[in-house]
C-alpha cells in the first residue's frame, strides 16, 4: 500500500478518535465510554482470552459462509448471465431471496433445524448468496463476445477459457462481491451468533448487551472491524493490484 494513502487513513482514524473522545468527555455517561475505556475493555477481554477465541470462532463462520456463498452464488450468477433460460427460471427465486429479511431466514432455519452450527452457517450463506449471484450475473452478461469467438477459433480448452478468458473478465465483479460480501457476512454472522450460538463475537455482544456494557460492545466491534480491515489491506488490495496490472499497460517485467 502506498505510504501516502496509509497516512491519509491514519489521519482519518485519529480524527474520528479525537471526535469520539470529545463527545464522550462532553456526555460523560457510561452509555458512551471514551476511547480509553474501550481499549481497557479490549485489553481485559484479551487477557481473559475471550477476545481471540471469540474472534477466531466468528472468523471461521465468516470464512466458511463466505466461501460457500461466493462459490454457489458465483456459479449460479454466471450461469444466469450466460444462459437466458437459467435466468428466466432462477430470477423470481433470486428476487424472493433478495427481499426476505435476513432475520427471517435466520429464525426460520433455527426453528426448522434447531440451534445448530449448520443452521447458523446456512442462514448466512442463504442471506449472502443472492447478492453474489446478482453481481456475478452482470459479470456473465458482460463477457466479450469477440474474445469468445477468438477462443473458439484458436481452439482454447475449457481450462484455458476458464483461467485466461472468463476469470479475468469476472474478476472485477468477484472483487465487488467479495468486498460487499465480507461487510455483509460478518454482520449477519453476529446476528446469527447473538440469536442462537453460545460462542463467537455475537454471543459476547449478547452478554455485554444484557449488562449494558457499551465499552465491551465497542471493543468487540473495533476488534472485528480491524480484522476485516487487515483482510482488505493484506489480501484484497494486493490481489486487486496484481489483477489490474494490465490496465496500466507497460511490460510484465
Amino acid at each position, binding site marked *: 500500500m502506498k505510504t501516502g494513502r496509509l497516512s491519509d487513513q491514519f489521519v482519518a482514524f485519529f480524527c474520528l478518535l479525537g471526535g469520539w473522545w470529545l463527545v464522550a468527555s462532553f456526555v460523560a455517561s457510561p452509555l458512551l465510554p471514551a476511547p480509553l475505556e474501550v481499549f481497557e475493555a479490549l485489553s481485559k477481554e484479551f487477557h481473559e482470552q475471550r477476545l481471540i477465541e471469540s474472534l477466531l470462532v466468528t472468523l471461521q463462520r465468516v470464512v466458511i459462509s463466505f466461501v460457500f456463498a461466493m462459490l454457489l452464488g458465483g456459479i449460479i450468477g454466471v450461469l444466469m448471465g450466460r444462459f437466458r433460460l437459467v435466468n428466466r427460471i432462477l430470477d423470481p427465486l433470486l428476487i424472493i431471496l433478495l427481499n426476505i429479511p435476513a432475520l427471517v431466514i435466520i429464525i426460520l432455519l433455527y426453528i426448522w433445524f434447531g440451534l445448530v452450527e449448520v443452521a447458523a452457517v446456512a442462514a448466512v450463506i442463504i442471506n449472502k448468496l443472492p447478492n453474489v449471484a446478482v453481481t456475478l450475473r452482470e459479470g456473465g452478461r458482460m463477457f466479450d463476445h*469477440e*474474445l469468445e*469467438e*477468438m477462443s*473458439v*477459433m*484458436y*481452439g*482454447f480448452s475449457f481450462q*484455458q477459457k476458464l483461467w*485466461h*478468458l472468463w476469470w*479475468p473478465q469476472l474478476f472485477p465483479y468477484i472483487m465487488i462481491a467479495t468486498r460487499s460480501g465480507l461487510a455483509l457476512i460478518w454482520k449477519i454472522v453476529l446476528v446469527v451468533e447473538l440469536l442462537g450460538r453460545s460462542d463467537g463475537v455475537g454471543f459476547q455482544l449478547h452478554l455485554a448487551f444484557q449488562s449494558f456494557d457499551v465499552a465491551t460492545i465497542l471493543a468487540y466491534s473495533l476488534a472485528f472491524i480491524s480484522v476485516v480491515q487487515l483482510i482488505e489491506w493484506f489480501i484484497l488490495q494486493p490481489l486487486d493490484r496484481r*489483477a489490474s*496490472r*494490465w*490496465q496500466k*499497460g*507497460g*511490460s*510484465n*517485467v
Partner: protein
Amino acid sequence: MFEFHVEGLALSQKQVLSALSIRVQPGETHCLLGPSGSGKTTLLNLMAGLAQENVEALGNGAKDKNYWSPNPPEIGYLFQQPRLLPWRTIMQNLLLVEPDKEVVLNLLEEVKLQDYVDYYPAKISLGMARRVALVRCLLLKPELVLMDEPLTSLDLPTAREMRVLIKRLVCDHPTRSMLYVTHDLDEALELGDSVSVLGNVPAQVIYNSRIDEVSRNELEALLKH
C-alpha cells in the same frame, strides 16, 4: 482446391447473401471485394465455423454446418481487430495457441516483435497488435488463412509494412492459401492471385477472375455497380 458453397445467408431473417461459391487453389491468395455491409465478415465467420447469433445459413450444408468440399481445411482467421487478451502479455497470448516458446519466438522475430514479449497489448500500437495477431494465426499452421480487412485503421506506412509481412509470410508461402476480404483495390491488386467481387442485394458474386486478367478500372466499375 478448397471450395466453399452456401445457398444463401440470412441475417436477422433478412437475406443478405444469395447462393455463392468461392474456390481457392492451394498456395493461392483469393481476394473478396465488396462494399461495406455486403456480408463479407458474416461470410468469413461462417467459413471459420463460428456460431453467429441471428445468422441463418440456407441450403444443404447448413444442416451439418459443412460448406466445404472436399473437406474443411485447417483455417487460421485474422480478425479485423487483433482480439488479443488484454490481461495477458504478448507471449502469454501466443503460448495459449502454441506451447513451444521457441516456435513462438521465431515467428515473433519474423515480425520484429521479439523485444515486446512481456508487454501487455494496451502498451503496443495497433499495427504491432495486428502483427501479433498475424503470428497467432500462423501458429495454427493453417492451410487456409482468412483475413478480414486486416489493414483497416492503420496509417499508410504501417499498412504498407503489414502488407509486406502478409505477402512474405502468407502469399509467398508455397502451400498456404488465403482468402483476403477487403474493399481496397490496391490491396487486392498487390496481394491477390484471383479476385471475386460481391455486388447486388442480396449480395452475390458478380465477377470472378484471375487478377492479371482484370484491370483496376474494371474492378472500380464493378464496385460502383
